């Protein structure tokens, strides 16, 4: 009866039913409400931009990666996330190029899934920001006419986009920084503001992230640490000088902080391995976000804060190694007993 149909494997013979593709596809699933919100706010432009960045990511993965890695879902996450942090009016070819860069230079060049240092979607966006600063900071106003495109999405590659009859405006952070104008908090929380496609609906992002945290598919310590740091640091500054520095709630719900803290910083590959490391990592991001936003030359700082801290992850990991069980000397153990 010893036929080859029996398995001979090493222990343990049972495994948890989570798998890496399952985690990835759950993240994709949890992003769908955010995508829906961006379509609600920005109309057909949102669909086009997200589709273009998704196409850039998937094609690069398919052409340069191992074919089967398309199925693990990680390229889909990168595509969706990149699309969600682009402005609605960006020409589609730029979104596509951003996707190609994200996967090609953000992930595959390092050796594929699990090997990259920087969050691929953020790296793609940083590339676009450096290459096309104007297109990346043109924010269409939320309009009555849902069907209208929010910019010259169909501009040809390397041509300057046509002026389209679209009102543009500054983001709440831009208003705050360059014009000292505040924005009503409820508009920030609900997402009815100018900004990138998916970064505006703060509450929705929190809910979707909460679902992932409950399933242990993201480490809640990272967003918690970012929120705490930003909240306390900004709150302290606001107390010292309420005119010059905005309130903590404004800082939390404006710009890309929510999507950055919940979806970008928690990317397992580019965040620390230990829980203590995650707290430090989140603290660093929160601190840098406030510093860049309030004293830097840019209105928004989440992207650079996360990328900078991504670079610190190997050091954080090394500094927060778990302390070995029974590491003390036998004599001490005796005394402790």
């Amino acid at each position: 009866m010893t036929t080859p149909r029996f398995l001979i494997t090493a222990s343990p013979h049972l495994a948890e039913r989570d798998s890496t593709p399952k985690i990835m596809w759950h993240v994709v699933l949890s992003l769908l409400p955010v995508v829906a919100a961006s379509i609600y706010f920005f109309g057909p432009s949102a669909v086009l931009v997200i589709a273009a960045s998704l196409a850039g990511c998937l094609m690069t993965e398919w052409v340069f990666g191992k074919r089967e890695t398309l199925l693990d879902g990680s390229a889909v996450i990168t595509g969706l996330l990149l699309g969600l942090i682009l402005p609605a009016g960006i020409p589609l070819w730029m979104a596509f190029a951003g996707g190609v860069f994200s996967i090609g230079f953000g992930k595959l060049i390092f050796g594929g899934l699990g090997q990259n240092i920087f969050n691929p979607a953020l790296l793609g966006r940083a590339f676009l920001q450096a290459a096309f600063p104007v297109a990346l900071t043109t924010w269409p106003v939320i309009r009555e006419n849902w069907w209208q495109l929010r910019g010259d999405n169909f501009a040809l590659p390397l041509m300057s986009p046509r002026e389209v009859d679209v009102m543009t405006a500054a983001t709440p952070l831009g208003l705050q920084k360059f014009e000292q104008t505040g924005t009503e908090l409820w508009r920030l929380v609900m997402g009815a503001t100018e900004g990138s496609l998916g970064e505006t609906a703060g509450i929705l992002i929190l809910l979707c992230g909460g679902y992932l945290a409950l399933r242990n598919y993201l480490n809640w310590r990272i967003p918690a640490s970012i929120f705490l740091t930003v909240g306390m640091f900004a709150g302290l500054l606001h107390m010292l000088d309420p005119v010059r520095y905005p309130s903590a709630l404004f800082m939390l719900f404006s710009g890309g902080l929510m999507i950055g803290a919940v979806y970008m910083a928690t990317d397992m590959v580019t965040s620390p391995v230990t829980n203590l490391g995650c707290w430090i990592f989140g603290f660093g991001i929160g601190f840098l976000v406030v510093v860049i936003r309030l004293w830097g030359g840019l209105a928004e700082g989440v992207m650079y804060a996360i990328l900078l801290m991504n670079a610190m992850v190997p050091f954080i990991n090394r500094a927060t190694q778990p302390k070995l069980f029974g590491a003390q000397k036998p004599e001490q153990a005796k005394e402790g007993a």
Partner: protein
Amino acid sequence: MPGRLKFRHGVHPPELKQLTAGTPIRRMPFPTEIVLPLSQHTGKPATPIVQPGDRVERGDKIAAEDGFISSPIHSSTAGTVQEVGLWPHPAGDYKTAVRIKVEQFSAQAPRPRIIPGWEGLSRDELVDAVRQAGVVGLGGAAFPTHVKLNPPKDFPVDTILINGAECEPYLTTDHRTMVEYPERVHIGIRIMMKCLGVGRAVIGIEKNKPDAVERLRATLPDDVDITVQPLTVKYPQGAEKMLIKSLLDREVPSGGLPMHVGVIVQNVASAATIAEVFETGLPLIERIMTVTGLGIRQPANLIVPIGTKTRDLLDACGGMLPDAREVVFGGPMMGTAVADLDAPVMKGTTGVVVLSEREVKPQRSYPCIRCGHCVDACPVFLNPQILGQLAMSERWEEMQEHNLLDCMLCGCCSYTCPSNIPLSQLFSMGKAGLRKVKAA
């Protein structure tokens, strides 16, 4: 100082004990042939003292111990020695074993003998009796019990911990032993306390066995200090270091033994067996084990003659179901998959689990995504993520710098890894690699 009844990290595999938790222990009928490997315990294999053609009675010694850390082996049946030669061993290779043809019509009664009462024996006589009966730890590692009962004098032992945690999924061997033979467990503990000259014993049992806690408490003797302590249900609660941490809040130092913190840990089944030795006069020739899993027809708790072939044992439980996929000796977390159904069960076999197609782990691995789940699971606070990376490039010595030798191969990291990386397998490879490096 009492412990907090739990340890940090670990995992929560499905318990799956309901298949046999309520099934009373029954005796398995004798098979037609018994195979007794000479290497059933930790330490040197025993030396055979029988020849093919010899007639043996049930309980007769067939192999003598070789050195201090070794254990004698006795025939579990009346019959005729067929052969002393190589035979499939549960570890996966062929090892020397004594094959005995069971006499069909024997009453299987042992030779008459005089059993001295244990109360009248001195400490050394007790330890010697345990040694001669071939008692080894029945929790899985099969470390000779007489060695543990005779610790070096430089580390005074103040507490015996009795391990009734049984944290492995599926197994109910210790559970049923505690429910059905609580008096034997207590007598065994008293004998061990006398051997060690220790005044205190604590029995640790996971909370998912309330009936065992209740039975042991109901039968507590009032003249010795034995306490029964329910513990948090978490794997690997039954690992020595975790049990000591949970019950006494002492940490066994890295590279040290329980006696370095004044503790000896024994399994409940070992305690019951020691009592049985002085009750019946028979050496360790049969043991209680759970035969279970979704791939077996009639899961059961059985008294099995040691040396019964896996095939015969499974047949006694109605045979395997068509979707049986893997036969595991011991629990599914740390047990060994058997390669040959002719391999016999041994003294240290806590159970045989037949896993079905539905529950075996997937066979494909993905790249590590550094999620940190393994770091959160490791009960001895290693970093399996880094160790895994080092193992893949065979950097054994660097693994040692990352405390590879503290790994007890509990399998928590592999269990929790979403990418299904065989971490604990890599670590046992690492340990073997290190041994090779050191030998060279």
